[in-house]
């Protein structure tokens, strides 16, 4: 019960942070798999079933742009931050730092 509650709360806590991490990683163009590897490299592992729907949602909101391109003889979908996404990332980063600062004081 305790583990389940922790797991649910952990997922909830990670959800918002992951969006910020994805937006930040996509300042440079990447395709899904390399993005996942990059996030995992920073200690933010995300499974494909979560990442791709999230990328689609962010693209629908106009924060990302994507295109299919061939690389290493394989078709891959590359994502990058849109100008609007870059603006939002800046605002969210400021918000994150403020929250982080406040939480540091509380914790």
């Amino acid at each position, binding site marked *: 019960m305790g583990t389940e509650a922790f797991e649910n709360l952990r997922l909830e806590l990670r959800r918002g942070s992951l969006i910020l991490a994805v937006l930040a990683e996509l300042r440079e163009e990447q*395709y*899904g*798999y390399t993005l*996942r590897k990059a996030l995992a490299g920073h200690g933010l592992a995300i*499974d*494909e*079933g*979560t990442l*791709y*729907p999230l990328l*689609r949602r962010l693209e629908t909101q106009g924060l990302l742009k994507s295109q*299919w391109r061939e690389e290493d003889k*394989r*078709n*891959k*979908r590359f994502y990058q931050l849109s100008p609007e996404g870059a603006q939002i990332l800046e605002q969210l980063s400021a918000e994150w730092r403020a929250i982080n600062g406040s939480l540091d004081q509380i914790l």
Partner: protein
Amino acid sequence: MELLDRYLNFIRILLPRAKQQDIIAELSEDLRAQIADQEAELGRPVNEAELEAVLKQCGHPILVAARYQSEQALIGPPFYPLYAFGLKVVQWVLFPLLLVIGVALALFHAHPIVALIGSVGNAIAGAIYMVGLLTVVFVVLQRLQTRLTFLDDWKPRDLPKVPVVPDQKLIPRGDSFGGLIGSAAFLAWWTGLLHLPQNTKIEFLNPIPQMFFWPVLALFAAEMVLHAVNLFLPWWTRRRAALRLLVDVYAVALAVALLRVWPWFALRFPGEPAADLAVVEQVVNGALYVSTVIVILSYGFRILQDLRRTLGKPPFVNPLAAWFGGAQSH
């Protein structure tokens, strides 16, 4: 890679048609890249167990496909509390109403038992129909993404004055419902509307039918009205407690009057030895005497409780209810 294709095809059929190709192509690319990385690391092709592990880590196709759905709930957060309220209205108002109307109509039917069963079935079917209708309405509202303007544009002053009922004033609806049905059934039998199989070998002794017909009918009619009111307005008011206090006193007086003309029943079994019948009669009437005394005691406790409610004081905790784990006092 037959297993991979099977996995992707399962996800495909669960996705919206317009997005199927795009999503599957991207997911397929990711999984193939993962497998290629693993193969490079192992220096050999992955075996079936390793491939299965990759797919299991990705998640069940139903869960994966669900994450691509724009709607994650049939009825979302803004509508759900209203929907839940609607369900409560069906459960506690419309269903009992249908049941009471059905039972009342069944009593006038030529075959009341058959009609009664039909009425219960109709009430259940009616409630299910209403729940279905309510669900459809809210699902449509959710789909249309209807903006609830009153959630944004509201004033605290415009909120309705919802009475806050302390626990001790709450009347469990189950009690009222059971009481209503019980009183109605007894009245139906008492007035002869409900023709139960008659046992001609047990009969009331005079003066029970002559003297007590109307007084008993009046008591159960009053109980029925009180239960009906309590069902729809499930909290005690001083006025309602005072009304029930009158009923309680009347019930005790009636029970005492009944005890004064005890015994009430006689057995008619031609051919049976009179001495044996007398013993059985004594047992039956004795049991009824004891039951009536218990009823008087319970009405006595109700008088005490209703008197306190009428005076605006909290009722005592019912020792029996407390014993069985409940905190309600009736």
